C-alpha cells in the first residue's frame, strides 16, 4: 500500500494543492461539458415541441376561420 492514511493520501507528499488542483478542475470541466451538452439538447427538444404545438395551433386556426 502506498498510502499510510487518508490524510497521507490527500496531502500527496506535500504536492496536494497541485495534484488535486489538476484533478478537481478536470472533473469540473468534464461535468460542466456534460451539463452544457444535455442542456442544449433539452432546450432544443423543448423548442421543437413548441414549434410543433404552434403549427398545430395555426392549423386549427386556419380550419376554424
Amino acid at each position, binding site marked *: 500500500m502506498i498510502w499510510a492514511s487518508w490524510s497521507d493520501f490527500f496531502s*500527496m*507528499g506535500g504536492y496536494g494543492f*497541485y*495534484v488535486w488542483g489538476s484533478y478537481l478542475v*478536470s472533473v469540473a*470541466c468534464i461535468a460542466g*461539458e456534460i451539463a452544457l451538452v444535455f442542456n*442544449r439538447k433539452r432546450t*432544443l427538444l423543448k423548442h*421543437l415541441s413548441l414549434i410543433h404545438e404552434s403549427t398545430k395551433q395555426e392549423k386549427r386556426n386556419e380550419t376554424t376561420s
Partner: protein
Amino acid sequence: MAINWFKYSSPASFYFLAGKMIPLFSIAATILFAAGLYIGFFVAPTDFQQGEAYRIIFIHVPAAWMSMFLYVVMAIWAGIGLAFNTRLSSMMATAIAPTGAMFTFLALWTGALWGKPMWGTWWVWDARLTSELILLFLYIGFMSLQAAIDDPRRADKAGAVIALVGVVNIPIIYFSVKWWNTLHQGATVSVTQSPKMATTMLTGMLIMSIACWMYAIAVILIRTRTIILERERHTAWVGELRGVAQ
C-alpha cells in the same frame, strides 16, 4: 458481408446509429476512468524524482494527446465537408471543437500546476507551451467564426478553412520538444528506474487516454445529434420523430 457505409453519411440514419452508440461509449468511459484513476492513485508507486507530483501525468498527458488528436479529426471532417459538400462531416467537425478546446485548456491548466512545483514557474513562453496555447486559440477561433455566421453551410466552409490552415500547428506542437530547446521534457514516458514502476505508470496513463477517447466520442455524438436536429428541424423525418415523441 457488404456494408453500405454511405447509408450512415445521411444525417437521419446517423442520428439513430449514434443514439445506439452513446450508451456503449459512456459505459466504457466510466469503467475506464475508474480503473485508470485507481491505478494512477493506488497502484502506481511514488516517483523517485518527482514524488507524488508526477500523478498529474495521468490527466495531463491524455488531455494533451486528445487536444491534438481531436484537432486533426476535426480538420479531417471539416475538410471532407468542404471538398465533398457532405453535411454530416461538417456537423461532426462543429461538434468536436468544444471538446477539443476543453482538453486543450486542461492540458494547459494541469501543465501549469505541474510546472510550478517542478520548474518553479506556472508558465514559460517555450515552444511546447506556446504552440499548445495557439491550439486553444485555433479552437476558439473556429467556434467563434462559426457562431458569427448565420447560414450553417457558409459557417461550415469558413470553419473548414481555419481548421485546415491550423493543422500546421499540430506537428509543431508534437516536435517542439525536439526542434527547440524547451523547458518541457521530451517524449519519454518512463521517468523511473525500476521497470515495474514504469509499467504500472504507463498502464494507468494508457487506460486514462482510452477513457478520454471514449468520453470524447460519447459527448461528441450527443452534440452531433443535437446539431443534426437543429439543422434538420424542418425535414419530414424530424417531424415524424416529434410525432412519435408526443
